[in-house]
């Protein structure tokens, strides 16, 4: 980074530190904060979509759809997220490649599972052989987003289902009395009214989601925990910047990052809540009660 960093072993004190903190690896560490924020930004709407589908399905009048919705919400909620992340992403990846294999190389007759190996034809690989590294990274990242969205979609589904049920019966009856069809009722009454009940739960969910991001390294994404571990671990003189085990300091840095993130999101949700409450004829304390929990 700086010109005086050419010979790290000659450096002392602050100069050493300024060079140390600007190595390529540290830059990757700083970038990974962006990765985490990007993951959050992509996962939140995706999970909301999954949750919405789950909630609507579990309230559906069509029995099989209802079972699917309920099973999804109940099953995924029952499994700890770490356990889920340890096998579902690999399964998803294999699933996608399997489908592509079926579609793209019907002529290949050899089995896909050969002993322990999972082998699909070259054209079915995701991403392809020849694709550059950034595509592999992006694919891995998107798979992580999908895995997070499946898990948190189940929780969002639970919250949204509760919110649908919380819309006052009287409003629904009034709408029916006006002769609204069930479709109209859903779009004009249920959906707009439901958000006010869902928001506290969703803000909670956001808080849990942010707290789950340290598990990203399990999904093969080089996130802040990966780099904090890597940078903090003891470095012998084989490295340009030898130092003892500094992991504690790096982790304390992450702690500060997460506290800040929580603080900012708490404030944002408080504002959003205040806006939603306008014209709702509810007291602030009611929503305070609703806003409890993780």
């Amino acid at each position, binding site marked *: 980074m700086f010109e005086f960093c050419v010979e790290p072993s000659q450096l002392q004190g602050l100069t050493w530190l300024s060079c140390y903190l600007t190595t390529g690896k540290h830059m990757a560490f700083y970038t990974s904060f962006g990765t985490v924020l990007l993951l959050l930004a992509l996962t939140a709407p995706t999970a909301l979509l999954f949750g919405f589908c789950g909630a609507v399905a579990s309230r559906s009048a069509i029995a099989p759809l209802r079972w699917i919705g309920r099973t999804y919400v109940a099953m995924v909620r029952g499994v700890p997220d770490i356990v889920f992340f340890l096998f579902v992403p690999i399964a998803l990846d294999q699933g996608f490649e399997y489908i592509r294999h079926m579609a793209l190389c019907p002529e290949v007759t050899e089995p896909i599972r050969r002993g322990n190996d999972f082998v699909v034809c070259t054209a079915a690989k995701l991403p392809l052989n020849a694709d550059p590294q950034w595509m592999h990274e992006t694919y*891995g990242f998107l798979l992580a987003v999908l895995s997070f969205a499946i898990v948190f979609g189940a929780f969002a589904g639970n919250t949204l289902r509760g919110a649908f049920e919380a819309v006052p019966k009287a409003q629904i009856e009034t709408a029916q009395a006006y002769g609204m069809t069930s479709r109209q009722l859903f779009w004009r009454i249920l959906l707009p009214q439901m958000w006010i009940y869902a928001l506290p739960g969703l803000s909670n969910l956001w808080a849990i989601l942010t707290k789950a991001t340290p598990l990203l390294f399990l999904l093969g994404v080089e996130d802040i925990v990966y780099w904090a571990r890597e940078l903090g671990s003891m470095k012998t003189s084989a490295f340009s910047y030898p130092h003892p085990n500094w992991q504690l300091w790096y982790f304390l840095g992450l702690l500060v990052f997460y506290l800040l993130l929580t603080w900012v999101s708490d404030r944002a949700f408080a504002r959003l809540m205040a806006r939603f409450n306008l014209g709702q004829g509810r007291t602030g304390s009611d929503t305070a009660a609703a806003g409890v929990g993780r």
Partner: protein
Amino acid sequence: MKSLIKGTVAGMIVSVALSGMAMAQTIRMGTEGAYPPYNFINDAGQVDGFEREVGDELCKRAGLTCEWVTNEWDSIIPNLVSGNYDTIIAGMSITAERDKVIDFTQDYYPASPSFFVAMSGQSVDLKGGVIAAQAATIQAGFVAESGATLVEFATPDETIQAVRNGEADAVLADSDFLAPIVAESNGELEVVGQERIGGGIGMGIRESDGDLKAKMDKAIGSMKADGTLNTMIKKWFGDDAATF
């Protein structure tokens, strides 16, 4: 880089069609990136170490283009068989258990002993004391069977730390990993014993990938024959290291 999940490249050497063409095949090399001097991430953020150098040379000789990816040690084999990368080159000893699931090339690093390291000047009972090891390593398996009390940590760093802070009496790990740490501890740590566990280190390859294995075997053979491999071993592990 890394990737549990990443889709995967080249892999399948279904490339009969490709082999005649000038275009080099892309092979993804899976490593851990946290096991110096075998493999580690250097200050520029790149995979570096003995295996990086060997791997790049092997790819050159085999006429392959290589991409390096890192993966958690715990899931390094499942991701190989699932096709997320094509080789494991991560200081992995050739063992019978692993050989059942994946294939190994011939060894590119001879079997080296594992060291017991403890605080200097303490008498340690290696058969009955508390021995730290990284979880899911052959050393952990060895300690579990030796009768000593095994304490397993997620990372190798934590095992050293456990010895320093008195949680464990000694740590059992690969000698090449421990030697520089002991050397730089200003006499605080010392080697108190050694044990031969496991065979040499080879490259892990899917069982269905016979072509790639043959190519790599041939490349390793040629590096052994002309002495380049020994030069690299000496460069990374010192002049006393065992060579071919």
